[in-house]
């Protein structure tokens, strides 16, 4: 059956199970947009292509499926770039489809021609330039396969306009076979045995749970393994939710703003079992003194991550779920009571400094607000964040019990991610409650997507934590630049009016007494809402491991400030 290239795009997308795409039209992808009208795919018109990229990303993280974003050539495609890099750093499967000038014009600096495959080469898992209609079907098939398999990641397809217009015979290709792309799944038995031998000998083991656990849907395997071996579980920022926060073996978040007792446990452990994480500098502190007594087992699907930052004793290259399931029958039941008690003493000390034990002093603290939202939502919402202090407080205090409900830009730390990723997540989980927590700075980067939320009726609750500062940068200037504040003081718009101008009901909250009612009000409205919280301006995220310091050398919240009464 003959079809145009543009029709083939949609034939393939629908066969891949795509129900929603996020995008923006323009000259070079108009044939694709024209053909779209005949297919049962919902298109979300964004206000800036960066928004489309983050929405597709949020959709992918909440659904576990591949997200799709589209843009035209030139400026449309370059506007996607931040979103592509964000998905790349966090290994999120998103297929980006951009229009390109006609093949015979390539290289001639035609109107809106940009070398998009060149620009996105280092920030995609793979990319394609398609110059003929008969390449489209196979390319899309490969792109989806590459995006979701192995270590997932973004794939970009740049389709020349002539390829969209020309017709060719359409046959949906078989599952692709690529000679150079064969993700590994299993780890060989002798290395599993090496790992088991280390586990048997260990008295102070700790599991470091990363995003890979969620990507490979290994939560159950992790639970079985941890319970059977009685090994406590610490999480990276992106691993949160893979292991229930309320579980007795859960240690919460590690790293730069991780729990102090969690970092202490890592530094004092004699065995690290890294599950689908990559020893990023934000979780290790300086490598010279990182977990000096610990042997290391690394379960990781991407061989280039093994030995990259930290030299490991046993590399188990493979899919986390498969490898952990293979390990479970090989390990015995252990008892690490002494070790768990040691960790508990650090934990007690940490709790004594917790902001949760503060007396009310009339001011609004983000940590309290996050805890209030957590309480009101029963801890069950899907939560997205922007980047900055509020992100760390949300990670610390929105305690997650389940995976795929925590959506934050970890590796890239992309401001502007919060609102659009929440809108994307809503398309994946329309019956769920969705909260986007943002700072006043980051919110303004993609605030125009409020209109998109209105147009789509996206039921997302935005909480703007307004400290009138670029808070995280201010905190670094306070700690490391003798409080010389440079370019962090921010005049913000009237967020309530701004939201209302977009057609979004909004309220401002200035005291703790109003909080409960305001949250209840936002939850009672179907559709997008905005709450602006006027928070304490110069609060800091604790604990903090300064860049280049050892993981246990944390700046702690001063005790006198936090002592009750």
């Amino acid at each position, binding site marked *: 059956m003959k079809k145009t290239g543009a029709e083939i795009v949609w034939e393939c997308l629908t066969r891949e199970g795509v129900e929603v795409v996020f995008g923006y039209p323009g000259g070079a992808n108009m044939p694709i947009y024209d053909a779209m009208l005949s297919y049962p795919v919902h298109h979300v018109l964004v206000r800036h292509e960066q928004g489309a990229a983050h929405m597709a990303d949020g959709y992918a993280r909440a659904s576990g499926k591949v997200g799709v974003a589209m843009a035209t050539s030139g400026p449309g495609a370059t506007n996607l770039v931040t979103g592509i890099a964000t998905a790349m750093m966090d290994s999120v499967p998103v297929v980006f489809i951009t229009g390109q000038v006609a093949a015979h014009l390539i290289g001639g600096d035609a109107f809106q021609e940009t070398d998009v495959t060149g620009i996105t*080469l280092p920030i995609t898992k793979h990319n394609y330039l398609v110059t003929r209609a008969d390449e489209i079907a196979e390319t899309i098939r490969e792109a989806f396969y590459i995006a979701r398999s192995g270590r997932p990641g973004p794939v970009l397809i740049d389709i020349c306009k002539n390829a969209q217009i020309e017709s060719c015979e359409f046959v949906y290709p078989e599952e692709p076979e690529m000679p*150079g792309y064969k993700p590994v799944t299993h780890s*060989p*038995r002798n290395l599993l045995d090496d790992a088991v031998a280390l586990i048997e000998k260990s008295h102070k083991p700790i599991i470091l749970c990363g995003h890979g656990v969620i990507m490979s849907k290994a939560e159950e395997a992790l639970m079985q393994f941890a319970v059977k071996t009685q090994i406590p579980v610490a999480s990276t920022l992106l691993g949160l939710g893979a292991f229930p926060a309320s579980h007795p073996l859960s240690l919460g978040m590690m790293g730069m703003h991780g729990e102090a007792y969690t970092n202490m446990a890592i530094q004092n452990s004699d065995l690290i079992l890294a599950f689908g994480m990559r020893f990023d500098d934000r979780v290790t502190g300086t490598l010279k003194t990182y977990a000096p007594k610990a042997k290391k087992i690394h379960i990781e699907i991407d061989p*280039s991550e093994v030995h990259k930052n930290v030299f490991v004793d*046993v590399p188990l290259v493979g899919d986390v779920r498969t490898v952990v399931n293979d390990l479970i029958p090989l390990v015995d039941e252990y008892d690490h009571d002494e070790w768990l008690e040691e960790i508990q003493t650090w934990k007690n000390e940490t709790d004594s400094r917790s902001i949760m034990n503060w007396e009310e002093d009339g001011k609004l603290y983000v940590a309290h607000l996050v805890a209030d939202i957590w309480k009101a939502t029963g801890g069950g919402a899907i939560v997205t964040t922007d980047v900055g202090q509020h992100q760390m407080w949300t990670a610390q205090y929105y305690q997650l019990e389940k995976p795929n409900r925590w959506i934050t830009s970890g590796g890239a730390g992309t401001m502007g991610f919060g609102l659009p990723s929440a809108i994307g997540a809503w398309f994946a989980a329309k019956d769920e409650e969705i909260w986007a927590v943002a700072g006043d700075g980051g919110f303004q980067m993609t605030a125009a997507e409020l209109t998109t939320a209105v147009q789509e009726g996206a039921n997302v609750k935005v909480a703007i934590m307004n400290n009138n500062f670029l808070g995280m940068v201010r905190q670094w200037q306070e700690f490391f630049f003798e409080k010389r504040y440079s370019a962090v003081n921010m005049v913000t718009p009237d967020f309530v009016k701004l939201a209302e101008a977009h057609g979004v009901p909004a309220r401002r909250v200035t005291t703790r007494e109003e909080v409960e009612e305001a949250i209840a009000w936002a939850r009672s409205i179907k559709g997008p809402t905005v709450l602006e919280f006027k928070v304490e301006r110069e609060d800091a995220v604790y604990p903090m491991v300064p860049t280049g310091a050892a993981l246990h050398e944390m700046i702690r919240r001063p005790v006198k400030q936090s002592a009750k009464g």
Partner: protein
Amino acid sequence: MNYTFIALVENKPGVLNRVASLFRRRNFNIESLAVGRTENPDISRMTIVVNCPNGDMDAHRIEANLYKLVNVIDVQDVTHQPVVTRDLALIKVRVGPERRAEVNGLAEIFRAHIVDVAPESVIVEITGTEDKIEGMIELLRPIGIIEMVRTGQVSMTRGTNDGIRRMPGLDGRRYEDLMEMAEMTP
């Protein structure tokens, strides 16, 4: 120290750029890169010589990242393996009839060929290892080199030997096993 990798890649547009870009992105310096077809028209073969300041750790990193490229089919590190290595140079020497015999004599010793003779210059073609070519260049330099071109090193393992595939954990080899193999210099 320089490491030598052999990579088999799909013969498609842009693949060379992907490989070269990887070295730039990971901040490695390519000493030499030679690409050509193989007996299979769909596959090209690259011989890549790279400076690895951190030795085997770098070599591992390079190999694993090369594997990650979708168009790369196989990568071997042949640095420590028995290999045949060749480089080809064309060297144009400024020489008139009076010293031509001298150049001829040198060419003979190095088993090089004179492939072009003009009134004031000759082109010498020499094939061999890096060392051999460097040796010849040193001797021609005082006579006067006008220009020179080299293909870059190409390598092939001897016999049925394979290079090292460092992918940690993949085939059950432990890091120590790899280190041991790396020690077995020819």
